[in-house]
């Protein structure tokens, strides 16, 4: 079921149509949004490498993780990094978003990551960011009619430095650009007012919400009775997706989602390696 989202992003938009846009939304009750983001990113990368997608390149706008993280992520998923220059570019809005650390740039990221990334040192200027994204995307696909995809690892970080209308503007402009095939972004819904969440849902063609598996356990006092339920919420959750179809109907899907930790380090705060998989929800 979650692959349906990835296939929709893979297939892209029709001529003259806005690019499909996915909002991945989570909250502190079920903080798996970033894992879902990584899953979608990996799947789309596989499609691009296999030549099965409409897009020929991927631009990752990294706000909440450094470019090195994404390079390591792709390596762990078995994706060839050596040839990555042709199809992926990471716009680094994490290392120095406000242009404070000019003298530390060379030491912050690995050499491998630095070859795949470029810095954005003024995230407050979204017009410039828009130009950078388009420029990097065109650099990946060349002058032809090919398209590229965009991944924004957190619009929650983006809106910290810019107004809602300018964030909505850049997302809308990216969706309507002729050479953008698809776009997806992550949102931590409990960090914002309902209006901002509504704005992003309005701009998206798909909204994927990560919800706690046991809704009743969240918010209650931690005691022996609901401790196991709380533990469950940190290992699995519900994945609720709403598709806006072209014919104007809305398709709703709800599936279970499990977070699997590999290796000995299963610390939720510092997990370096985790996998996520989806199963149909048994009612």
């Amino acid at each position, binding site marked *: 079921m979650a692959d349906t989202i990835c296939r929709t992003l893979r297939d892209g938009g029709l001529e*003259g149509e806005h690019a499909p846009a996915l909002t991945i939304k989570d909250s502190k009750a079920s903080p798996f949004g970033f894992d879902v983001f990584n899953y979608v990113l990996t799947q789309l990368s596989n499609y691009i490498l296999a030549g099965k997608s409409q897009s020929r390149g991927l631009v990752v706008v990294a706000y909440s993780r450094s470019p090195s993280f994404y390079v390591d992520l792709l390596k762990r998923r078995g994706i060839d990094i050596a040839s990555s220059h042709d199809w992926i570019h990471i716009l680094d809005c994490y290392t120095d978003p406000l242009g404070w650390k000019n003298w530390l740039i060379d030491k912050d990221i690995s050499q491998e990551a630095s070859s795949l990334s470029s810095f954005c040192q003024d995230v407050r200027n979204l017009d410039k960011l828009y130009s950078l994204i388009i420029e990097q995307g065109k650099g990946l696909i060349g002058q032809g009619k090919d398209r590229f995809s965009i991944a924004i690892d957190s619009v929650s970080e983006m809106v910290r430095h810019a107004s*809602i*209308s300018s964030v*909505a*503007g850049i*997302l*809308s*402009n990216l969706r*309507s650009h002729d050479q953008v095939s698809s776009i997806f972004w992550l949102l931590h819904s409990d960090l914002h007012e309902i*209006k901002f969440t*509504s*704005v992003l*849902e*309005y*701009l998206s063609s798909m909204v994927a919400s990560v919800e706690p598996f046991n809704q009743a356990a969240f918010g209650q006092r931690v005691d022996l009775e609901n401790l196991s339920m709380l533990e469950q919420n940190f290992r699995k959750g519900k994945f609720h997706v*709403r*598709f*806006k*179809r072209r*014919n*104007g*109907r*809305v*398709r*709703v899907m709800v599936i279970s989602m499990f977070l699997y930790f590999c290796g000995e380090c299963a610390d939720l705060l510092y997990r370096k390696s985790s996998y996520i998989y989806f199963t149909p929800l048994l009612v």
Partner: protein
Amino acid sequence: MKAAQTPHKKEVPCVFGRPPQLPITKIIRLSAALLARHRRCSTPTAALSLPPRVCSLRPESLSCRLSTIYSWHFTGKTKLCSVDAAMATTKPRLSSFSRNLSAVSSSQTPGVKCGPNGTMFVSSGIADLDKILGGGFPLGSLVMVMEDAEAPHHMLLLRNFMSQGLVHGQPLLYASPSKDPRGFLGTLPSPASLKHDKSRDRESEQEKGLRIAWQYKKYMGENQPNFDSHRDNKQDYCNEFDLRKPLERHYFTRQRVNCVGIQDSKNLAALQEHCASFLAQHQRNDGSCALAGRIAIQSLCAPQCEHSNMDWEMLSFIKSLKGMVRSSNAVVVITFPPSLLSLSSTKRWQHMADTLLSVAAIPDEDKELAKLLSGYQDMVGLLNVHKVARLNTQVPLILEATTFSIKLQKRRFLVLECLNQAPVDGSSGSSYGTSGSCSGSSKAGTLDF
């Protein structure tokens, strides 16, 4: 009983106020006498002398003086809507109070027709919607459409509205939050070919014998006399648009089509100026209508616009626009997503509208809904009519239904239909959906009442 035909073919309105003390029977007798006098009159004027407590009004100014809550508004076309309507209908001589559609005169201006109460209508571009609203969008009115964030159905309404205006040669002002508003003109639908219309007629003729009796309400309106049922008039006033066929370019290159982008503007001042200059060209002069104009504003509070967080400025703009359009021969259609406004702002915007519509998405592959509604598989969304513009009258238009399904016939033609419940299998109590088949899911068994 028809209203008197006058040389000028004008409607002959007669309105009188009823003070509480005057018995209703006396009013009825007086009105009958007035009707008889109208038939004998060769001039379009008439006056009714009543006791001092009752106003004596000349027909030309009657609609302006209608003020009492007990008033009856009789134009020869409008149904009697007073609380005493039951009394009037018991007397056959008072059938003149019923709608007399044959007396309606069509305006000389293409795409504009006269309606009751001195109003003039333009078509919405959707024939079914025109019927629901009592003729179309009145000139001088503000139409607001509440969008659904999950469905683009408001774009269907906008497209048909804009296309209809361009086909009639009516100037159009289109405002949009997109980067290239003019590009939207390429998605406007073209009028359906005559060949399709003829084939539809043949199909409708053939289908008459196959209609299911229990859904009679769907077909009731087709047999009633309707002034726009005449084929030529219907084509002139409201076209049927093929959503898969783009409008020919000559419609929007020759005509005065002005497209305005509202995303990059700091505020709504520029848009207000555009609207003011557009409406100034369509000022209403003594009831004459040289050419009607149309303004279409898409997603006024779209989040990418800088003014989207200026609640009071947007409300002020709408109020100003409403005031300007009221004295012009134009119609303004504004769409907006209420989910992006505060509740209080949404209420205020709804209050500003003369005609208020909303569109809603429907879930896909919903088995429960498929069992509940007939024709679910053809539906793409729902349309709700919350308010209908009624200019120059205090008489409301009471609709039989306010929720309609939006369907695309052959994926090309937009139609609105009343919601009909799917047939329910009486033996098992479960519905067997819209297939119309009695086999399969139906189970043999005695009916349990």
